[in-house]
C-alpha cells in the first residue's frame, strides 16, 4: 500500500489561479519523500490539500489507501503537519503544548505521558522545560513544533519547508531529526523544500515540480544527472559583456546548454574536464575579459531548465 497516491490533481483557487495542474505522484510508506520546487510551484497548495485543509478541484488522492474526499476525518487521525509558520501556542509551556496536542488526537493520558517523555528526550528538549516557550530560539521552537506533531505517532508527517531561513548548522541538525523520525518511529515524511542539497541528502524519493506539475520523480541516484551535473560558470562585470560572450560562445557549439543569470553564464559542463579546458582556452584566445570561471553545482533553476527541455537555450543566443 502506498502512503500517498495523487492522480491528475488540479487545484484552482477562486481567484482563478491554478496552483496545481494535473499533478501525479506516489509516496511509499516509511520513506522520506521530498517535493522540490521554487516558490509558487504549488508545494504548499499540495500540502494543504493532502492535510485536508483545502479541497481540490479535480483528480484523485488516496492517503493510506483511503480516498481523501470520502474519509478526511479518518485521514486526520493518521497524519500531522508541521507548517511553514511555527504553530506553537506561546502562552502555554512546553509540556502544556504537548499535552494540548495529545488531547486533540485523543491519546490517553498515561500513553501521552510516555510519548511526551520519549519525544522530549529524542528531540533534546528537556533542558528547555523550565523556560517559557516565548523565550526559545527559532530552532528550538521548530524542534518543539515537530515533537508536538509527533505526539500522536502519525503515520505520515508533512513538513512544509521546515528548514527555510535556518543556518547550515541548524539545517543539518534538522536533517538528523527527520532521519530519526523515519528510522525510530517508522513515519513516512513528506517534505517540501527548495534546497537541492537538502532533497539530495535526505530523501529516498524526490519529486521535482514546477507550475503545478511534476517534472520528474525518482530516487536521488536516478536523478543524479540533473542534481549532480557540473555547471560551468563564467562571471563578468556587467550584463552587456555577459550577453555578448554568451552569443559568441553559443556559436562555437562547445556547450550543449547555456543560461545567463546575474552577470554570469551558466553552462552544462558534463563529467568531461575537456569542456572546461576548451572554454578556458577559447576565452583567452578570443580575449574575453571575464572575471571568474569555475565549476559549480547547479541551482534549482538550472535543473528546471534542463528538465523542461531548455537545452535549446543555446539556440536563443545564436542570432
Amino acid at each position: 500500500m502506498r502512503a500517498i497516491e495523487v492522480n491528475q490533481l488540479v487545484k484552482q483557487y477562486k481567484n482563478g489561479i491554478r496552483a496545481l495542474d494535473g499533478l501525479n505522484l506516489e509516496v511509499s510508506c516509511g520513506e522520506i519523500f521530498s517535493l522540490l520546487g521554487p516558490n509558487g510551484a504549488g508545494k504548499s497548495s499540495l500540502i494543504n490539500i493532502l492535510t485536508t485543509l483545502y479541497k481540490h478541484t479535480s483528480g484523485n488522492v488516496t492517503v493510506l489507501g483511503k480516498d481523501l474526499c470520502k474519509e478526511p476525518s479518518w485521514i486526520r487521525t493518521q497524519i500531522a503537519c508541521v507548517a511553514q509558520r511555527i504553530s506553537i501556542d506561546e502562552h502555554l509551556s512546553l509540556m502544556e503544548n504537548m499535552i494540548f496536542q495529545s488531547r486533540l488526537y485523543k491519546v490517553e493520558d498515561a500513553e501521552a505521558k510516555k510519548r511526551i517523555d520519549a519525544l522530549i528526550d529524542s528531540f533534546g528538549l528537556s533542558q528547555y522545560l523550565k523556560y517559557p516557550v516565548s523565550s526559545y530560539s527559532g530552532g528550538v521552537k521548530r524542534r518543539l513544533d515537530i515533537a508536538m506533531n509527533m505526539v500522536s505517532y502519525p503515520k505520515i508527517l508533512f513538513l512544509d519547508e521546515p528548514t527555510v531561513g535556518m543556518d547550515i548548522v541548524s539545517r543539518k541538525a534538522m536533517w538528523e531529526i527527520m532521519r530519526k523520525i523515519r528510522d525510530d518511529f517508522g513515519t513516512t515524511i513528506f517534505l517540501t523544500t527548495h534546497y537541492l542539497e537538502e532533497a539530495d541528502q535526505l530523501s529516498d524519493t524526490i519529486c521535482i515540480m514546477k507550475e503545478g506539475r511534476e517534472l520528474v520523480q525518482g530516487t536521488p541516484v536516478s536523478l543524479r544527472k540533473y542534481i549532480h551535473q557540473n555547471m560551468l560558470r563564467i562571471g563578468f562585470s556587467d550584463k552587456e559583456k555577459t550577453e555578448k560572450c554568451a552569443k559568441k560562445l553559443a556559436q562555437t557549439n562547445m556547450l550543449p546548454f547555456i543560461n545567463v543569470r546575474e552577470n554570469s553564464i551558466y553552462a552544462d559542463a558534463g563529467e568531461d574536464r575537456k569542456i572546461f579546458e576548451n572554454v578556458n582556452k577559447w576565452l583567452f584566445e578570443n580575449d574575453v575579459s571575464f572575471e571568474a570561471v569555475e565549476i559549480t553545482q547547479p541551482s534549482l533553476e538550472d535543473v528546471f531548465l534542463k528538465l523542461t527541455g531548455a537545452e535549446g537555450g543555446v539556440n536563443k543566443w545564436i542570432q
Partner: protein
Amino acid sequence: MDTINILWRNMKWRFQNPISILLTIIQPLIWLALYSAMAGQSMRNVSGGNYTAFILPGIMVLVAMACCSSGGYLNFIMKTKGSFYRILIAPVKRSSIVLGQLLEAVLLSLIEAGILLVLSMTMSVRIASGFAGLLLILLLVFLAAFFMSGLSYAISLCLPNEAIYETIMNLIVLSIFFTSTALFPMDGISGGLKIAVMINPFTHIINSLRSLILGSSVDWQNLLLVAALFICLCLGSFALAMWRIKKETDN
C-alpha cells in the same frame, strides 16, 4: 472533551494576559461607578431612586459584549502565532473548535458580570427577586454573551486584520449599547429612535434583567419570551460561526 481542551487553552491565554480582563471590565466599571454617580441626581425620577441599580443590567450586557469582542480577537493571535491551523487539520469537530472558543468568552462574561454584581452591592444595589432572580440573571447574561461571542467569532474570521476588527466591533457594541434602554427608560423615547430601540434584542434582555433586579416578582411570560428570542439568536450566531470556520478551508 475537545471543547474542554480548547476552552482550557483559551482560558490559559486569558489568565496569562490579565490586561485583557482588565481592559474589558474597566470601561463598564467607569460607567457603573462614575456615570451612575454623576447622572444619578438628574435621573432620580426615572430610575426609581437608585440609578446604579437601573443601569447595572445595561452595564452587565456591555461587559459581556466587551468580553465577546475580545474573544474574537483571540482568532487573530492564534492565526499569526498559534495553533489555529494545526487544530483545523486535527481530528477535532469544527463544532467543538467553535464551542470551545465561544464558551471562553461566555465564561469570562459571567465572571465579569459577577464582579459587577458584587461591586454594585457595595453601591446599595440589591437583587429584589432574590436568589432565584440571581440565577435567572446569570442565565440571561449567558444567552447574551453566547449570541455576541458567536457573532464576534464569525466577524473576526471575515476580516483581514485586528485593527479593522477592533474598529468594527467598537461600532457594533456602541451602536447596540446606545440604541437600547441601558441608560434610560423606554417611556421617554419616541419616533424613529423608539423603533430602533425596540428592534434591538438587547433592549429586551436589559429590560428583563432590570425587572429581576428592581422587581420582587418574576414576570415569567416576558422572561420566557426573551429567553426564547435569545436561544434563537444564539443558534443563529453559532451557525454563522460554523459557516465561517468551514469557509476557512473552502479556498
